[in-house]
């Protein structure tokens, strides 16, 4: 018959209309400012600098290697290296950035800087309500504004934070193992050096005791 499909269609929309008042899960709209959804695991908005411990200056992981500055497609990162050095997490004396600016209005959240950073020092944050009334200073973030503790990283990207900590720990362990090995090598070298020194001392004493014989043949250099 002619009108059949129309009636069926109307029944469906009627069910929807009254259903939306009765059952709550039909109405999927989240009323944004009041009700917020938890950001997904791999949400990424704008980068931030990670620092260990509680003091941003000392614990900053970034060693101003400027790889991210070169790799950044829109070139929105600006780093000035420092003259002096400070120890990094491995105790090695490293340079640190005096100024580390990111222009948020230019950054396109591509997270290439996160991929290329060898020191796990720049990660993507999930904060997106960044509107300011000042286009220049408001969106040109300095080191102080970018630096956030590792605990924030754990809160925001729990899984990635664990992986990154594991990498750093492994790195540190390797460095310590190397340091230990280097230390042992040094100790062994000193021991050898000491033994060799005593040997030479005895040899010189023997020569002093019998001055007349001809000078000893050239002893092969101790390597």
């Amino acid at each position, binding site marked *: *018959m*002619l*009108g059949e499909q*129309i009636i069926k*269609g*109307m029944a*469906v*929309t*009627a069910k*929807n*209309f009254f*259903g*939306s*008042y009765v059952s709550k899960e*039909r*109405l*999927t*709209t989240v*009323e944004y400012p009041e009700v917020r959804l938890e950001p997904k695991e791999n949400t990424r908005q704008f980068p931030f600098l990670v620092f260990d411990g509680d003091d941003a200056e000392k614990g900053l992981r970034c060693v101003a290697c400027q790889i991210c500055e070169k790799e950044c497609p829109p070139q929105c990162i600006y780093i000035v290296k420092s003259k002096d050095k400070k120890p990094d997490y491995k105790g090695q004396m490293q340079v640190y950035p005096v100024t580390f600016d990111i222009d948020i209005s230019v950054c396109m959240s591509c997270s290439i800087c996160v991929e290329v950073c060898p020191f796990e020092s720049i990660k993507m944050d999930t904060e997106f309500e960044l509107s300011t009334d000042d286009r220049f200073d408001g969106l040109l973030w300095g080191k102080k504004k970018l630096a956030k503790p590792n605990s924030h990283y754990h809160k925001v990207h729990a899984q990635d934070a664990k992986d990154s900590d594991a990498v750093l720990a492994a790195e540190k362990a390797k460095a310590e193992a190397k340091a230990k090995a280097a230390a042992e090598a040094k100790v062994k070298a000193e021991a050898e050096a000491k033994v060799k020194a005593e040997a030479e001392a005895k040899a010189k004493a023997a020569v002093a005791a019998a001055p007349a014989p001809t000078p000893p043949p050239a002893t092969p250099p101790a390597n």
Partner: protein
Amino acid sequence: MFDQLDQIFVTLKHLLMGYVPERWQPLVSAVISIALIPVIFPGLFSIVTILERKGLGRIQNRPGPNRVGIPFTKIRLAGFGQFIPDGVKMLTKEDIVPRAADKVVHFLAPVVMLIPVLLAYSVLPFGKNMTIADFDAGVLFFFAVGGAVEVSVFMAGWSSRNKYSLLGAMRAIAQMVSYEIPLILSAVTVIMIAGSLNLSEIIAKQNHYTAGIAHWYVFTPWGFVGFILFLIASLAESNRTPFDLPEAESEIIAGYFTEYSGFKFALFFLAEYLGMFAICTLGMTLFLGGWTAPFACLTWIPSWAWFFGKLLAFVFLFIWIRGTLPRLRMDQLMNFAWKFMLPMALINIVAAGVWHFMGADSLRWVYSGGILAVAYALLGRGLMNKQKLGKRTYRYAE
């Protein structure tokens, strides 16, 4: 007590008239009853725009507007404050007139559209003896004035000097003209049975009750078919979905009011809604007994409450249809008007004639209902299998 409540506005007006000197009484009484129209119905229009947006939202499982409330307070009014910012936005938008446009006609078009629609309200009964001008030929006046809207649609389309708005205007006029005939023919059946063109008499004829149920014309076979035809034709007449091709965004931008913005666009928008209310009121008066109560036990509710209740029910039906049905293509739209609505309306007149002359025995239900059922089946099947949506043939565009 209920009768005073029913006649509260009439007594109010007489009270006011008491203060007016004798010489000025006709003028002041006219002014009072006329002034009510541009106050009440645009108010209803603003509420209906919100109902429409919330209704469509709820049909699509989203809450619809619920933000605007009283400024500087937390009260949200569940979105019913939305029409204030909409109105302010509409009025403060810049009114762009295209350079090539024909200034005078471009300016007159919304005015010429609003005049007939507001004229049509003078005839409609809003409650017991609450009609502004109870003409002897009320229905004829309504259709005559309703027909004048097409001139303004043409003026709007042509004066914008824009191919799309001219095409949109042509389509709108073609649709309005071809749906006006079934509209008038389905109204003719009611006039034939009620025996008068005067709307108050038509309502008086429907105002009796047997076994508690009102004598509305919609409860007769020809009345029901007439009501459905009238409903479909009024959907087309007020350019509502599924017949809103002339002003569909996906088709020709905004049809004949593409080049309008700001206040003029608001006037078109208002005229369209007022036209919808007027045609709904007429449909309700002809088939659903205007301001009469459906059941004898409910007659204590005042007549104007019934009027606005039924009007809002009609508006909800229109919103419901708008949320459901897809838009008809131009040729389907015309096919439907000329090949289904018109023959069905004519057969409906025959059925009403049979009903009228067969007296009150129950056999007339069988006959009149039978004619209509057979006609519906044949016309329906004719239209349905013709819909073998084959390749479309164009008469002009090769």
